[in-house]
């Protein structure tokens, strides 16, 4: 019953289905239920007429365009023929699917059908030129049979064949949307259960695909009819240069095409849902079908009314309309500000006038800038109305285009949905962290390099320091500090340097123990350093000279100690007991 021949099934599955179909025809438990009159009317009359009417609307547009190029082409005849051929195509498709003839009978059926159609097309093409034309054509066919195939006949034949095919396609798709008894799941104990379970899609029709076929055909037909109607409305030469003016008025065949198409799609959607519910054994409560028709009609009427209220043309361009809107907005703000200032100044003047007793002085009000003249709109009694209408038009159109683009991208490519703002922010944050850490490490390396270079320079500087060090430039206080620190440096070289935790006086004991012969000088040097470092009273040059003497002696004692350590036993400096 359904056009399951379009299903991609292998041979075995086809056999299985054939068996099942045979079982149904033999009166199995899934025998088809009797259709009520409403269903019969819908399937046998309403749907075929609706499909034929849609295709006829396309044919009208074709005829309009062809009439511009070939005024003698019988457009009305082909329009009528398109309607009749579409009905015939639907009827023959239903007849074949219902009776299920053999392949041979089917070919014969189609051959006869097409011979009749082509003869009618040929006669119609000739009759377009009148009875004399027909007689002349018949005479020419008897002389030369090739004249039978002239350009008008071929073009008409192609048009009619296309519409015939589309009618069959739509009719078959609509028929396959219906729930077929063969699709019902058999009982688990039934012998067909296993066979059914091995069939593709468990023997069910892919209804969404069929619905998609109908919708796609409708859309492409809509594009074709719009293009044809557009070419019929607009001068093509102006269109090529984009200098054409706008066209207004209702195009009846376009309106009828889309209205019928939307009604048909609404009905197809209901058929799909109902079939799915029936096959899933879900009970349908209430008058759902009647309500559906009512709601589809009401919804389309509402949308049509709302759309009729919206502006469909513009007299001011997009940029001009936007600039005017911005200028108006600015003026509105200025007006509001000036009004506010006026109120404030009035209040202030009243208060000040009462307190001073003098008559209130009139303050000069800021005068708003004059309203810029709106762009000139031809044929408009009020120029601003044209701007408002154009603004509304552009606003709606931009909204429609923006919304459509956004949802188109979101529905098609799940990429936009996948990349949420949170993920993007996280990615940017991670990138920032990576960049920051790498920058920091690079900066640290640079700093380290600079520090190393400076340190090496410093070491070189230290080595060079004695060459540039001048004791004459030092103050007496610094000289004392220098003497002491010089002793510390030398003592540390000898291995008994001052630990950081010990004070100068504590270290004095250590130093005196290591250099017993110079203990007095060590004490003097230490006390002089303490005085120079921690006191504020002035250090005189004679004091420095005394410290210098002590420093020399300590230094000498350290030198002797080192030498003695290099050679052998320790020698006494003060007692002049020198080692040999």
């Amino acid at each position, binding site marked *: 019953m359904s056009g399951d021949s379009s299903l991609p099934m292998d041979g075995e599955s086809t056999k299985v289905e054939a068996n099942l179909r045979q079982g149904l025809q033999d009166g199995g438990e899934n025998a088809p239920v009797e259709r009520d009159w409403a269903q019969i009317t819908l399937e046998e009359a309403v749907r075929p007429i609706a499909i034929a009417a849609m295709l006829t609307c396309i044919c009208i547009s074709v005829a309009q365009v062809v009439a511009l190029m070939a005024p003698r082409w019988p457009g009305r005849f082909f329009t009528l023929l398109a309607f009749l051929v579409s009905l015939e195509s639907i009827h023959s498709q239903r007849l074949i699917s219902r009776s299920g003839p053999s392949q041979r009978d089917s070919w014969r059926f189609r051959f006869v059908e097409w011979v009749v159609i082509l003869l009618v097309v040929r006669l119609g093409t000739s009759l377009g030129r009148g009875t004399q034309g027909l007689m002349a054509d018949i005479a020419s066919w008897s002389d030369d049979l090739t004249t039978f195939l002239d350009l008008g006949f071929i073009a008409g034949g192609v048009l009619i064949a296309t519409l015939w095919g589309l009618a069959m396609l739509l009719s078959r798709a609509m028929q396959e949307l219906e729930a077929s008894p063969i699709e019902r799941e058999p009982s688990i104990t039934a012998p067909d259960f296993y066979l059914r379970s091995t069939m593709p899609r468990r023997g069910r029709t892919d209804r969404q695909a069929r619905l998609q076929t109908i919708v796609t055909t409708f859309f492409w037909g809509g594009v074709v009819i719009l293009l044809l109607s557009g070419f019929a409305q607009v001068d093509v030469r102006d269109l090529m240069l984009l200098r054409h003016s706008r066209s207004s008025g209702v195009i009846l065949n376009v309106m009828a095409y889309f209205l019928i198409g939307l009604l048909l799609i609404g009905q197809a959607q209901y058929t799909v849902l109902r079939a799915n519910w029936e096959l899933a054994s879900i009970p349908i409560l209430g008058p759902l079908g009647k309500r559906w028709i009512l709601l589809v009609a009401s919804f389309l009427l509402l949308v049509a009314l709302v759309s009729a209220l919206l502006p*469909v043309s513009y007299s001011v361009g997009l940029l001009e309309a936007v600039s005017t809107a911005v200028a108006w907005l600015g003026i509105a703000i200025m007006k509001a500000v000036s009004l506010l200032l006026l109120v404030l100044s009035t209040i202030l003047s009243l208060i000040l006038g009462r307190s001073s007793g003098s008559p209130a002085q009139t303050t000069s009000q800021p005068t708003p800038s004059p309203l810029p003249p709106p762009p000139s709109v031809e044929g408009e009694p009020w120029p601003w109305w044209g701007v408002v209408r154009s603004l509304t038009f552009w606003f709606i159109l931009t909204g429609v285009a923006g919304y459509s683009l956004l949802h188109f991208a979101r529905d098609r490519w799940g990429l936009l949905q996948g990349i949420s703002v949170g993920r993007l922010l996280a990615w940017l944050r991670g990138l920032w962290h990576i960049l920051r850490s790498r920058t920091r490490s690079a900066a640290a390396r640079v700093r380290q390099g600079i520090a190393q270079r400076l340190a090496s320079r410093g070491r070189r500087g230290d080595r060079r320091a004695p060459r540039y060090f001048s004791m004459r430039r030092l103050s007496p206080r610094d000289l004392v500090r220098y003497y002491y620190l010089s002793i510390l440096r030398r003592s540390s070289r000898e291995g008994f340097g001052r630990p950081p935790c010990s004070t100068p006086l504590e270290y004095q004991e250590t130093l005196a123990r290591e250099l017993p012969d110079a203990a007095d000088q060590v004490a003097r040097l230490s006390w002089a350093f303490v005085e120079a470092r921690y006191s504020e009273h002035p250090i005189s040059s004679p004091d420095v000279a005394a410290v210098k003497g002590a420093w020399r002696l300590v230094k000498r004692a350290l030198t002797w100690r080192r030498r003695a350590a290099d050679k052998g036993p320790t020698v006494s400096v003060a007692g002049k007991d020198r080692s040999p």
Partner: protein
Amino acid sequence: MRDLLPFILGLFFIAAIFRVDFFFYILYVFFGVYFLSRVWADRIVRGIVFEREFQRRAFLGERVPVRLRLRNRGFLPAPWLRVHERLPIQLKSPNFYRCVTSLFPREETTLTYQLDCRRRGYYPIGPLLLTSGDLFGVHTVGKEVPNADALIVYPRIVPLSELGLPAQTPFGVLPTRQRLYEDPTRIVGVRGYQSGDSMRRIHWTATAATGALQVKRFEPAISIESEIVLNLNRDDYTVHRAETATELGIVTAASIAHFLIEKQQTVGLSCSGIDPLSETSQPIALPPRKGREQLMHILEVLARVQAGKGPSFVNLLRRTSLHLTWGGTGIIISAHADDQLFDSMLLLKRSGFHLVLILLDPREPFDGIRERAHLVGIRAYQVWEERDLDVWR
């Protein structure tokens, strides 16, 4: 019509190129169909409210009708509304109820289906799934309403004789007219002072009110408190009999509780099973009370409770003694009686409690167990009959 947007975009370009006013009108119509269909479909389900009407508690074998009242609170009609209610398989087969309907604004419809209470238990009803969409297949929206309703099916109550228990020999101790013992915790009234009355029994408030010495009258009883202690630890039962025996234990507990409440006794329940409504894994404990309200509490708990891995039954038994007053009766319903259980029972017996032991799945010959129990003064019974469980098979 999900692929309407490419067509709208194409229409936009055609209209922009040709500058035909009517094309813009067609563009508006299609955009309106797409946009309003989406908005409509989104709002349909939001506007649907529902209410389930059914009797929340039922006895085994009852048929509970459920009325699902759906109301379209919104201003938009629902062209189609698919209702799918998930149900427990124990109550309905197949385990769902579904239908398709349509609702105009402010319209209300009532859907009805039946639930067969074939097994005791606590059964959440739902969730309810509502699915709807627009007229052209642009958008489909679904909403799952979480289940907030539940049906409690009480366990079966059978005459004790059917369980093989001695109906003539009551559990616990009935109130007696011989006022040998009086329970000082149960005051039943006052009377005038008589010579020999203890000073402790004087009711000073009543005395002050009447101007004459009044003494308290206590309920004459040895003990009328009973506590049913039910073992639902699945590990204590043999694998092949666990399901049957635990259900039999629940039926036995319910029947005994009913019997005792009918005799106006005080009954409590302790159980080692799992209560699906309880957030903690503590054993179920209902302190001894009187009256039908207590019976309903016990039956509700016994309806909900499920066998599982719980705390040790012996520990539960020891803890139960805290609920009982001295001289109370403990009715122990367990799978079998091992040494550990006997030790615990002996301790309770020595502490002054009366004990009755009912075994559901003994692993040793019952005669031996009965003899052993008899030696320590405990009456032992066995419940094995499975014909009482046929109803839920």
